[in-house]
């Protein structure tokens, strides 16, 4: 494993705003790092510093062994970057824009057309190559931005909200593309969409108010949820009361909630003590009492909940919302 991006003790202040506060992390080749956080958390600012667009107030960034401050050109050569909002020159056609970027990126003249055709194929831009960029839809503009970042086949890809503004099919395609490229690159993507982290990232970093609050795999992130390993079961009203008492009596169950009642269905949620597993015990209890259970399901813990728990630790909203959704 080679470490391609090393960020250590990074700080950025804008006046009184401490936008990035002591952020450190590494990204290895083969990793896809998902950068999560509320708006204004410092995700884009961190990305702008890695790509050399902004200067850090403190800390160091090394990309493929080169310091961003000391050797900015060496660093920029190795990075493909999709800036926030996918800016591009509106008056240019897609073809001429890609030619311009390829030229400045130093793609040799003999390979330029091949590379451009390659990227156009990959991102499915065939139908718009001769259109000016300002006439394109939001989704196409974003894809032109991604295409531009891939032209020189960089070792490192930094994509600020690559799927923003894309329709579900396009999102799926971009995710596949990222997964395809993941093996021999180090990739950082930022996103608000939690399912995306599950779908493409091998690691998730949650950042809020400029600080890193979580750094681990998406599975570890899910395990942080209160609802991890919780069990929902749907029973008829007659057994509901008995079931509630019986489940509450189990050792590893922290609490049982009646989260919905609808006709002859009552939905119960059994929440375990942190880190415990309760499905076996519940299964045995059901079997012993011979209840008629219409549905039984283990929750893996929703990323949304964890995200809310981590970024807004004093809010209970996460749980309330979970109840609503389960209903």
């Amino acid at each position: 494993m080679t470490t391609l991006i090393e960020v250590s003790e990074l700080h950025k202040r804008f006046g009184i705003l401490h936008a990035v506060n002591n952020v450190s992390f590494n990204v290895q080749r083969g990793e896809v790092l998902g950068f999560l956080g509320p708006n204004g958390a410092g995700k884009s600012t961190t990305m702008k510093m890695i790509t050399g667009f902004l200067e850090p107030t403190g800390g160091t960034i090394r990309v493929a062994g080169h310091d961003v401050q000391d050797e900015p050109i060496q660093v920029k050569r190795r990075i493909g970057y999709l800036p926030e909002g996918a800016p591009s020159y509106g008056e240019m056609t897609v073809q001429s824009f890609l030619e311009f970027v390829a030229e400045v990126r130093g793609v040799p003249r003999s390979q330029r057309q091949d590379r451009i055709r390659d990227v156009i194929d990959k991102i499915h831009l065939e139908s718009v190559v001769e259109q000016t960029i300002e006439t394109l839809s939001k989704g196409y503009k974003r894809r032109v931005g991604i295409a531009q970042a891939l032209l020189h086949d960089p070792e490192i890809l930094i994509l600020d909200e690559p799927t923003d503004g894309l329709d579900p099919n396009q999102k799926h395609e971009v995710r596949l593309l990222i997964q395809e490229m993941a093996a021999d690159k180090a990739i950082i993507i930022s996103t608000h969409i939690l399912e995306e982290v599950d779908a493409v990232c091998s690691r998730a970093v949650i950042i809020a108010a400029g600080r890193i609050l979580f750094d681990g795999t998406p599975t570890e992130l899910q395990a942080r949820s209160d609802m991890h390993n919780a069990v929902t079961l749907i029973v008829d009203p007659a057994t509901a009361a008995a079931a509630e008492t019986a489940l509450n009596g189990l050792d590893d169950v922290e609490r049982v909630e009646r989260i919905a009642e609808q006709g002859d269905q009552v939905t119960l949620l059994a929440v375990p003590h942190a880190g415990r597993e309760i499905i076996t015990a519940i299964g045995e209890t059901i079997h012993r009492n011979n209840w008629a259970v219409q549905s039984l399901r283990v929750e893996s813990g929703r990323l949304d909940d964890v995200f809310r728990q981590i970024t807004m630790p004093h809010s209970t909203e996460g749980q309330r919302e979970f109840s609503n959704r389960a209903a």
Partner: protein
Amino acid sequence: MNNIFAIFKREFVGYFATPVAYVFIVIFLFLTGVFTFYLGSFFERNQADLQPFFNFHPWLYLFLIPAIAMRLWSEERKSGTIELLMTLPLSTAQAVIGKYLAAWAFSAVALALTFPMVLTVNYLGDPDNTVIVAGYIGSLLMAGGFLAIGSCISALTKSQVIAFVVSVVICFLFLLSGFPLVLDFFKGWAPQAIVDVIASFSFFTHFDSIKKGVIDARDMIFFTTLIAFWLYANVVTIEAKKAS
């Protein structure tokens, strides 16, 4: 060098991709015509030269050049493309020079399209064409000076309007720095040496001698130094914004 050329090419082609270029050229040609023939009394003077044509260039440039320069960096900042540009593997100086040369080349194209003036005066009489060539060189250098100022100011703000207005004011000061309007402001308190230096900044004085056919090294050095200074300031401005 390749990078400067790539930026230059993109920018230069960009002028002609929008109506801006054509509008600018038409207005420039129209105004040079009006100024030369009506205000400059081209015919009444009965002399075969282009003095009435060149006399008004400083005034035309005062408004038209900041109009070209205002978009150079403001637009990049406004649309966010500056982030794309500055994360490409090129130095800030290369980007500044590439953009500047493209704008300068564009103003050279506009200036070159005034060639019917030269044909007219040659048809009507027997002018000293070396003086006319000198006039064109001087005019182009002066345009370059205004452009460098405008480019630097444009890097300071997102707003093209602010860039335009501030550039016009600064260009105006440079234009008139040999005149009492500007000098009186300094005479009261600054030592004579400084007043002389300021007076020597006047575009008018330097352009005046060139357009009369006197290509003096000092005037050349003045304009090239001025351009170099403002472009350097331009680079410094962009670098400073990175750290802010």
